């Protein structure tokens, strides 16, 4: 596809301080083996986008570690491929960006230097599996200036801060844009915008000239009747998360077969992620496991129920893990009982641990903690 993908990786970090303590939200672990950025990257790659820029800001060590050379997404290319654009990449004089528009101003030179006709703007922390070819198709049919991806859904309290809500007319043209909308049935934007590269460059140059700070509220909002923004309805599974509570709730939705089917089971559109070369998971003689997602490299001697285990997790004898998310390489000792726990990476829970959260308030254990 004749488009360059721009992924903003830090844009929603401030909303989930626990999860983004030492990573960007885009690098958050999800679904047993993935990180949030895998979804937008895989969607781009599966739509034959071969040039992708990831705009970072801070705290991006684990993101860069995960991306590596981009091989896993077939983006280790001589022509195009993946490029990471930290802030200050073009100028040390510009201030550190705080929003979408400033981030785009910072990479103006990169955008100018691309050869692609179109730009796809996306956030790195959206869980979806979208076919951008369909977006392009609709973009050409409608003759839109900007195509904005949305879904008719209910936004719950926990994620409203990151979401944009559209009002649409009968032709799907956006007539109003709001953020911080009250939770109800709405056309929720996926922060995914499709337009000509030249058009975006014009918008950015104009915004710099006017001293605007916000893409949605200052550039699009007031000019919504001049700029032809057309909505593209995405009908697949979509999730975004900006707190431990919404992270837990959205992760647990993966235990529903229909959700997995929508997100993962299109053989044409697999979700790629980094390869860890873990051996298969080993179940001991007394392992007991029900309704759970288990990644490779685990050793399970105990009981696991309604849970998600990431790669390399150990569950000791006599331990019961229920309704919990245990991330990479964490160790659950023997004779413990864990209920509604979100254990981040490399956590060690020693023998005889009794920990419990509540289904609306899971108990979060920081990366590398020893309990």
């Amino acid at each position, binding site marked *: 596809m004749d488009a360059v993908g721009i992924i903003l990786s830090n844009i929603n970090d401030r909303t989930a301080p626990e999860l983004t303590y030492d990573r960007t939200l885009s690098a958050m672990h999800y679904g047993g*083996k993935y990180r949030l950025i895998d979804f937008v990257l895989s969607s781009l790659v599966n739509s034959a986008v071969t040039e992708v820029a990831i705009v970072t800001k801070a705290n991006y060590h684990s993101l860069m570690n995960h991306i590596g050379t981009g091989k896993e997404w077939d983006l280790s290319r001589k022509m195009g491929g993946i490029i990471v654009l930290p802030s200050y990449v073009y100028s040390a004089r510009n201030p550190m960006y705080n929003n979408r528009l400033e981030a785009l101003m910072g990479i103006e030179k990169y955008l100018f230097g691309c050869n692609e006709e179109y730009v796809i703007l996306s956030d790195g922390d959206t869980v979806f599996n979208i076919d951008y070819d369909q977006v392009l198709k609709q973009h050409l049919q409608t003759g839109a200036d900007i195509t904005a991806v949305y879904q008719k859904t209910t936004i719950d309290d926990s994620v409203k801060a990151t979401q944009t809500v559209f009002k649409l007319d009968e032709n799907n043209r956006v007539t109003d844009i709001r953020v911080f909308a009250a939770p109800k049935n709405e056309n929720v934007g996926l922060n995914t915008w499709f337009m000509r590269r030249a058009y975006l460059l014009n918008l950015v140059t104009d915004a710099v000239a006017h001293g605007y700070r916000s893409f949605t509220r200052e550039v699009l909002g007031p000019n919504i009747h001049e700029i032809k923004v057309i909505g593209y309805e995405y009908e697949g599974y979509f999730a975004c998360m900006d707190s431990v509570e919404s992270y837990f709730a959205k992760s647990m939705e993966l235990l529903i077969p229909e959700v997995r089917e929508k997100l993962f*089971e299109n053989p044409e559109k*697999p*979700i790629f992620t980094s390869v860890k*070369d873990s051996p298969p998971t080993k179940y001991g003689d007394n392992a007991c*496991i029900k309704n759970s*997602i288990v990644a490779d490299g685990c050793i399970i001697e105990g009981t696991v129920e309604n849970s998600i285990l990431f790669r390399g997790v150990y569950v000791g004898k006599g331990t019961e893990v229920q309704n919990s998310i245990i991330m990479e390489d964490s160790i659950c000792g023997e004779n413990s009982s864990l209920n509604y726990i979100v254990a981040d990476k490399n956590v060690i829970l020693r023998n005889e641990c009794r920990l419990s959260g509540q289904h609306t308030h899971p108990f979060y254990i920081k990366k590398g903690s020893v309990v």
Partner: protein
Amino acid sequence: MYKKKKKWLAMILAGGQGSRLKALTDNVAKPAVSFGGKYRIIDFTLSNCVNSDIDTVGVLTQYQPLELNDYVGNGQPWDLDRTYGGVRLLPPYQGGEGGDWYRGTANAIYQNKNYIDQYDPDYILVLSGDHIYKMNYKIMLDYHIEKNAAATIAVIDVPLSQASRFGIMNSDENGKIYEFEEKPQNPKSTQASMGVYIFNTDTLFRYLEMDEQDETSEKDFGKNIIPLMLSSNEALYCYQYGGYWKDVGTVDSLWEANMDLLGSRPKINLVDPNWRVYSRHVPSFPQIISEGARISNSFVTEGCEVAGEIYNSVLFGGVKVEKGAVIKDSVIMRNCVIKSGAVINYTIMDEMTVVGAGAKVGAPYGEGNEISLIPRAQIIEENAVINEQNQLQMQLRYE
């Protein structure tokens, strides 16, 4: 073209048909046969090379190379996609003179003299692509250099009762080999050759040249080159290896090697951060274990969906086991589907087979029963009973 000189390189013999693996090698060469949930047999040798800091590896292919070629590819999964060196697939080719099929293991190396010369290595490591083991060849090379040997052959202790199935090395107390016997009736020692050789490059090619002139030779390392070197009084040493090693040349030994992964103290441990075994990855969702599943002492891989019961078995990626199905003492390869109520006992099932509801495959392990082998992409009807007799018919239908 610029080539870096290498201290050593590895040549992996991967052209064998492996006819004793029966239907498993109908479409693939033996080194590409699946093993251990997510591996192919050749992963072990390739990973050994990388973990021993060998960065130049030739893979000699001949029989059914398509899938093996695809699998090895540019060597990226093993970190062998290098600018200088890396992995090369070396099929036989037509040359001005003598270009031909590989006529034996020694001839295969001989025909690739040009490839080896590019890197001008001091030592050549000759390996087989069809053994399961984790071995640090670097220690063996140190031993080879320390002994000032012309060739070093890795050996492993086997039970005396089995020694007559192997090539047996008889050596003195310093490890110097004075006699080699291929599959002896009355073995004098229990030191079996593992098919792992280190040669000084110049010496090796001197003997390969000599062997080429001999028209009666079978052009085989064990049968010809090693005896020829011994009779010429070259310093051949054996290197005692103490770890796990298995030739998975038969259906039974392949099954045993898979079972060796299981148990609380497995004979070969794959959960070893210091010695990872690398493999080519298939993107798939983690495994999903549903309500009603029962899994005990088993290996289960990404992409599996399990709702049935699994005991003492190895499941490859993408296997679906429906509710009420029971799998015991079996190896189920990639993307098989086991429908509800089916019972599978003591079986190796190749990829993409569908077992209908209520079908019975194989006879329980023990009690003197033979292992059952189900070839690739079969459809086993509902309530069918597959035993030794009709297994044969199935293979015919498949052909």
